């Protein structure tokens, strides 16, 4: 890979100006997806790289009306952030097994979501927490639900010169619990299948259910039929079985070097069942979240 210039702006405005002036430039934060793709010539060499590592406003986690996660915070920092751990248990699960320590020390949510791998581990947890993305360019700022951000493998709703600047999650509701499970061949491998679940329970009734899956469709996606099978129920065996049964028609896994289609279908259903079993025990009182298995 060759490129003409490496820019290190220290303000977001300067970074966006550079992008507007250099349409052939690419943004780089951790670089753990981009540099691999450039080496493999998935993308042509960019004329310039615009580093996002020295822009303070992209590197902060702030709590106000909502939780605002700067798009360039290293994942290792998010994994130990008290607000992320308290409000986003499913994301905390995903971060514990994300890549490797070396990757997590530099990789970012902005980069992972912008890379739009169908197997992104960050996407299912953020989808079940109804995350929104803040996008900025020199033309202005807009928000988009994460559920509308992914358009296909490697394709997003980002326009020219636009970057993700923050991930926004509204304040947690009382009694919300979430968990993330993934299955891969070895620890440091892209997932064969992953599932995130969030449940809100009022008394004995499930008032909100969010289910999302990764690595089993062209994009990470919500499993709305599973959600409908759970909402309004007492999360009894019949409701859970109906949710699990709905998975097969909702996903579109492929066979590849990591796993075959039939196995991915099977595993997704298993992961959903395990997630429901894990959360069913936690919905009685204070949200506790759950752990991840690889």
């Amino acid at each position, binding site marked *: 890979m*060759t490129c003409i210039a490496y820019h*290190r702006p220290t303000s977001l405005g300067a970074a966006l100006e550079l992008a507007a002036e250099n349409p052939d430039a690419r943004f780089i934060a951790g670089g753990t997806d981009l540099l691999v793709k450039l080496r493999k010539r998935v993308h042509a060499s960019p004329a310039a*790289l615009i580093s996002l590592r020295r822009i303070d406003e992209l590197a902060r986690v702030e709590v106000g009306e909502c939780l605002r996660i700067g798009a360039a915070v290293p994942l290792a920092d998010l994994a130990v952030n008290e607000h992320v751990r308290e409000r986003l248990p499913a994301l905390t699960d995903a971060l514990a097994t994300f890549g*490797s*320590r070396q990757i997590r*020390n*530099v990789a970012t949510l902005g980069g992972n979501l912008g890379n739009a791998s169908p197997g992104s581990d960050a996407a299912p947890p953020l989808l079940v927490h109804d995350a929104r993305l803040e996008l900025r360019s020199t033309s202005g700022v807009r928000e988009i639900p994460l559920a509308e951000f992914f358009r296909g493998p490697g394709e997003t709703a980002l326009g020219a010169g636009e970057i993700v600047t923050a991930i926004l999650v509204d304040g947690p509701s009382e009694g919300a619990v979430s968990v993330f499970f993934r299955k891969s061949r070895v*620890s*440091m491998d892209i997932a064969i299948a992953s599932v995130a679940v969030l449940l809100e329970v009022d008394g004995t009734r499930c008032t909100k259910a969010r289910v999302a899956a990764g690595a089993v469709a062209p994009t990470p996606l919500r499993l709305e039929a599973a959600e409908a099978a759970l909402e309004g129920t007492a999360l009894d065996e019949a409701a859970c079985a109906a949710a699990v049964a709905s998975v097969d028609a909702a996903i579109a896994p492929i066979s590849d070097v990591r796993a075959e289609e039939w196995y991915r279908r099977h595993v997704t259903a298993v992961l959903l069942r395990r997630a429901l079993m894990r959360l069913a025990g936690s919905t009685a009182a204070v949200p506790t979240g759950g752990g991840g298995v690889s």
Partner: protein
Amino acid sequence: MQISFELNGSMRRARVEPHERLIDLLRDVLGETGTKEGCGEGECGACTVLVEGRAVNSCLFPAPEVEGLRVVTIEGLCGEGLQLSPVQAAFLEGGATQCGFCTPGMVVSTVALLGENPAPSASDIRNALTGNLCRCTGYVQIVEAIQSAAAKLSAGGEA
């Protein structure tokens, strides 16, 4: 572009290309060849170095990005007269090195781990070394060597 940064305790200046990686700067420009390139894709960890105390894959770290930062490589872990650090000595004594190619990265990752967790369990160690692959040893002696080094360091000494 001209950059300057701290490498193993000394300030270094170098001229780097915009597309150069930290591993290229270390090995080809500065001649510090202890850091190895096993895959070039951030999977194997043979290229692991510490930047500001954090383990990173130098094969994916842009060289221009290291301006003003502190870098420690395997060469920086030796004491006076090339005396081995406790982690290195433990690897040697424990048979945790066969071909040796993964070893610099393993040792650097271990130093990062012990800096955060001085008494890691075998499970903690395996988790921390997810990003360091070994094709020779089967990892058993590596885990044991790290536990041995951790015990010695707890008794006094620096990694």
